[in-house]
């Protein structure tokens, strides 16, 4: 599905943000990309839809190299890549509905976009998504009147309106409080699994990454230093990614998470990674 090979990005300032990153996404799983600030997480995600132009390397989406596409072709490919941002990046003065429908901008004509005349199917899908993300009745509210969590829900709906083949998620919770963060992560993971859409999620919060994702990619200094299932993330792995630190509290957080699930009636037994995905989904469904 997605195959990134030897991706390098050198910014004009000389910063080597990515130093030969190779990554394969071949299952509809949620992949956390963790790493210290400046490790190249944002750059990696933005290179995939070329909001940042990669310096060299290949980005194959179903066999087509995104890195070498012309402008027109690139726009077509961007429709298949839904993006969710840390700062939500809604068009503030537009309504919630207009923001959600903007996910269809790559499909409608200029005049349809200008007059906001979307096909009935798009509008139906938008209403369904609004219901699904918990914003029923908000369609005519202006985006700047929403809270952070609500904005991110609109951001998620907008990305899903594209019916993307891959979700690129850049720090979805970094501007949110802990409770809202968990709710948003839960929603995101749930929707990704529901639709069978793989998602690359940049995330600062290791605890959140461990409790909600299937696979973890650790980035340090523009290189991948860890890539594996979430239960193989140990104190040693975190030290490789972030550097020396006492990780016992971070690891304990995972245990808390397990207990939480136990209370919710899910068995504690360590399942293999494959089943673990279902367990997360299950836990989420009960939590809502």
């Amino acid at each position: 599905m997605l195959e990134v090979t030897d991706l390098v990005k050198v910014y004009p300032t000389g910063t080597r943000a990515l130093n030969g990153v190779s990554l394969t996404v071949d299952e509809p799983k949620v992949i956390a990309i963790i790493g210290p600030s400046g490790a190249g997480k944002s750059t990696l995600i933005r290179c995939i839809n070329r909001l940042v132009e990669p310096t060299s390397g290949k980005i194959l989406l179903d066999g087509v190299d995104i890195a070498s596409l012309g402008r027109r072709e690139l726009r077509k490919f961007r429709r298949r890549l839904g993006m969710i941002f840390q700062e939500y990046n809604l068009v503030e003065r537009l309504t919630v509905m207009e923001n959600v429908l903007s996910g269809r901008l790559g499909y409608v004509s200029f005049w349809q976009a200008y007059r906001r005349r979307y096909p009935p199917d798009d509008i139906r899908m938008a209403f369904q998504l609004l219901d699904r993300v918990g914003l029923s009745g908000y369609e005519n509210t202006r985006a700047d009147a929403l809270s952070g969590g609500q904005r991110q829900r609109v951001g998620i709906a907008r990305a899903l309106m594209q019916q993307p083949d891959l979700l690129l998620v850049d720090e979805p919770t970094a501007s949110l409080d802990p409770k809202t963060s968990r709710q948003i992560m839960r929603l995101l993971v749930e929707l990704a699994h529901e639709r069978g859409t793989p998602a690359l999620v940049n995330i600062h919060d290791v605890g959140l990454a461990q409790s909600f994702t299937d696979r973890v990619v650790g980035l340090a200094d523009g290189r991948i230093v860890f890539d594996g299932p979430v239960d193989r993330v140990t104190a040693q792995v975190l030290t490789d990614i972030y550097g020396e630190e006492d990780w016992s509290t971070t690891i304990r957080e995972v245990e808390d998470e397990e207990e939480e699930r136990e209370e919710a009636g899910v068995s504690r037994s360590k399942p293999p990674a494959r089943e673990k995905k279902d367990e997360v989904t299950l836990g989420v469904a009960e939590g809502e």
Partner: protein
Amino acid sequence: MSDIVASTGADRSRWRPPSMIENPVYRGGLAVLAIAYVVWSLAALDIDWQRVGSGFPRAMDMFVRMVPPDFNRWELLIRGVLESVQMALAASFFGMILAVPIGLCAAVNLVPKPVYLVARFIVVLSRTFHEIIIAILFVKIFGFGPLAGVLTLIVASTSFISKMLAEDIENMPPGQLEAIRATGASFPKLLVYCISPQALPRYLGVSIYRLDANIRHSTVVGIVGAGGIGQVLAASFSRYDYDFSLAILLTIISLVFLGEFFSNWVRSRLR
């Protein structure tokens, strides 16, 4: 380095913010230079105090002849005012339209560098000359009358509104543009879906402000013969009809007040 030394100094209960210019010699030298400059420029002005003195009685004489204001030729007055308002309205309208393409091209985050540079050059060039100079130029080309005035005000309005529009777009948070681009939207769609809703209220606000400014400026460009109430005023001064001049000045004051009031009222409603 130096602040580390300072903080390890003996008295740790005293602290002053570091000076903008650290070297006391430079600091003192700069002060001396500044004083010298003021003294020199005053000397260079070569003020003739005798002429200043003789100006006072003449001013008194003028003021005495101004009161009471003479509103007998009100038709002339009304015609001048209407012409000024029409000039201002027309200039604002065309300025608003012309400012859109220029303003978009002058926003560095939207267009390629060469387009940006050309647009910025146009904006800077049209702002280089004061309206009076442009008005003189247009009066020479198109003759006396409101056409020259309207063209002058169009140039001024266009450059003002487009500069404001460009700066507003440049100050937009880049994330929104990024998000819309990421959906696969083309540039025209980005324009109507993201830039236009975000920039519109301020664009309208600036345009209304400019209408108000154009009413003021239309009275000024008239003085060099570019039509409007200003031209009537200039004529009355040159004929020493000071009482009529005062009538015109009072009219201009109330016109500008009205314009300002209207502009504030509309802009307070735009959010």
